């Protein structure tokens, strides 16, 4: 297994507001550079149920899928498959928890599943060495930015 990427921080708002900002008002803050089209005015949409699509839509109506909702447990937990910039079958998994702590909310993002992405050859899959290809989605995003 390749160690998940884990990011923790606090936000000065309620878990509900944090969850809604993340999943329902994503377009307000998501860096446009981290999208397929980089189109000005693009919107980012999370459909609010397991199995829901995560996608960007340009003002011209072009849509690009980024992932699929696995868990929508407002306000505590959100989990989704994530394949922005790569094929659906190379999806990694993002899980975010929003836990109230006094007036603030502790946000923990765990991005895992890197080892899942061994490329096509079964031989490579067996090796389980570094899971290089797991990082290729990030690379592809980097070069298209």
């Amino acid at each position, binding site marked *: 297994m390749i160690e998940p990427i884990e990011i923790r921080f606090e*936000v000065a708002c309620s878990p509900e507001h944090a969850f809604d900002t993340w999943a329902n008002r994503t377009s307000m803050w998501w860096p446009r550079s981290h999208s397929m089209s980089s189109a000005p005015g693009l919107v980012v949409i999370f459909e609010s149920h397991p199995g829901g699509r995560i996608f960007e839509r340009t003002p011209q109506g072009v849509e690009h899928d980024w992932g699929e909702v696995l868990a929508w447990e407002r306000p505590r937990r959100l989990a989704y498959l994530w394949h922005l910039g790569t094929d659906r079958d190379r999806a990694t998994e993002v899980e975010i928890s929003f836990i109230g702590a006094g007036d603030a909310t502790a946000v923990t993002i765990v991005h895992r599943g890197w080892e899942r992405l061994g490329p096509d050859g079964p031989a490579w899959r067996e090796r389980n060495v*570094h899971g290089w290809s797991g990082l290729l989605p990030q690379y592809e*995003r980097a070069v298209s930015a």
Partner: protein
Amino acid sequence: MPLHALPGDPFDALGDPNRRAIVELLAAGHRSVSELARELPISRPAVSRHLRLLKEAGLVADRAEGTRRLYRLDDEGIAAVREYVEQVWGEVAARFRLVAENTREPRGQDRS
């Protein structure tokens, strides 16, 4: 491992399908240039050129063994790639936080 500490860019290095193929072959074990060239649809000099780029990007390391030079994967490049991923998440998190902390919770919102 900051990206600028490497002479080459691991993202550029991984941008070529032949170089990705080399990385995948090396993931299976140490190999020489001629062994790699046998398994790829490119010439030996081309393999050498790709290996040089991969080495500069910290993705591949080499050592001499007798008369042969053996190549293997190196951790430095992957650390750089990983750091990039963390940096992207850091930017996402910072932007999210700015908006979450500076917008109001809409009234009468469904709290289900």
